[in-house]
């Protein structure tokens, strides 16, 4: 790159010199090293010789390749964590809560700044009659906490918000309902 630039400058200088009448060529010597102009590879004797390792070891490389999609969960029925898979047949209810792509219940804790920071429990991926679901969960939470629970229903985005941290309670309720 730099050498090309230098050559073009030299050429331009020469042509202008010819036009004026000078015959002495102007030499521009580049006294710097450019990364772009440097040769990318050295000659082979600068590198080590190598040999191929047996193909038997390739299985260890295959172990390191991550899956390109979310793997499906094992259907053996032994789930010792809080997580359980959704019921095979959806429950006969006017509403439905879809699992996320990672097979998780879509209940999240959000921190919303209104006048001060508030903890908001949000349920997403709702289908069907959102108002019935809101009434059912709200009455459940109120019976648990023995105090009124403030809720907000968004019919367009199809999500419900509850003021306060009820994530574990709501998750448990939804899992028990078979979602």
């Amino acid at each position, binding site marked *: 790159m730099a050498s090309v630039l230098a050559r073009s400058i030299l050429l331009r200088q020469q042509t202008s010199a010819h036009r004026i009448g000078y015959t002495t060529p102007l030499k521009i010597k580049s006294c710097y090293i450019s990364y772009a102009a440097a040769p990318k590879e050295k000659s082979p004797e600068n590198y*080590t*010789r*190598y*040999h*191929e*390792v047996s*193909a038997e*070891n*390739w*299985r*260890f*490389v295959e*172990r*390191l*390749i*991550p*899956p390109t999609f979310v*793997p*499906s*969960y*094992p259907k053996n029925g*032994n*789930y*010792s*964590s*809080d*997580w359980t898979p959704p019921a095979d047949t959806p429950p006969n209810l006017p509403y439905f809560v879809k699992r996320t792509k*990672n*097979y998780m219940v879509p209940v999240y804790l959000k921190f919303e700044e209104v006048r001060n920071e508030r903890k908001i429990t949000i349920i997403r991926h709702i289908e069907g009659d959102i108002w019935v679901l809101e009434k059912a969960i709200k009455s459940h939470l109120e019976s648990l906490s023995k105090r009124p629970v403030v809720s907000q229903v968004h019919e367009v985005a199809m999500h419900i918000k509850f003021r306060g941290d009820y994530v574990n309670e709501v998750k448990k309720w939804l899992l028990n309902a078979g979602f």
Partner: protein
Amino acid sequence: MAGAGNRVLAGADRALDLLRSLPRLSLGNLKSNPKAFQQSKRGRGRYGGNKHGAGNKGSGQRQNFMRLGYETGNNPFYLRVPKEPYYKGHHLRREYPPISLLQLQTLIDTGRLDTSKPVDLVALCNTKIFLLSPIEKQFGFQLTDEGLDKFKGKVNIEVQHASEQVIAAIERNGGVITTAFYDPPSLLAMRDPIKFFASGIPIPKRQMPPEDAIEYYTDPKNRGYLADPDLIALERFKLAQKYGYELPDLKKDPELAMLLERKDPRQIFFGLSPGWVINMKDKKIFEPDDEKLQEYYKS
């Protein structure tokens, strides 16, 4: 003048016709009148020039402001408060992001982790749920004791830090745990091995832990990777006695070969030696012949 054609228009008709062909006025092409916003120039001379907004006298007018923190002779705030050395040496500290036993069990339940093979940092990063950032001085994962009673998985796991209770929870189920150190260049290769292999760089040689971590990783109580295996076996027995559980016999285990799989202290990937170059496209592995390089990569 699209509509003009052969007709001769005059006056308002002509103006309206012009308007029809012109672009509509919208928020996109609104522009203020020329010279609508013109800054008044700073006046100079006998009557025009005054203070020019710099105020009268003092540091404001002369632009010689006091240095930051100077309180005109008071004991300044930055010296009044005593030092709080909570973050002393934070640039040297190693961070180990936590993974709880409940999270690990959830990974197993949802089929994200294959427990038929040893679980190490690469397997945890390959779930794409836990990300490691070695550039932020994260040196690997620590296993925490949340969900300790619910943990039922039998795993051969390698983490960078684990408490005594966590070790007991893993070994109670017939699993094996090792704590191992990785230096940042190794971690950069391990967090995304496929991307690393594509760069054409040979697999790095794992460096020994720093001075303040050697004690941890040589201690059989922590199941350190530099500890004596015989002493680890003894400590496994002692821990089972302490927490009162029956230690499952590893020798009778059908998955014994998997449970005994360990890395060399200089190795970062199972089955792959440092110095090897992986060609993902042709599915080939190359090893250097140079004696000096072989000497360097030797463990």
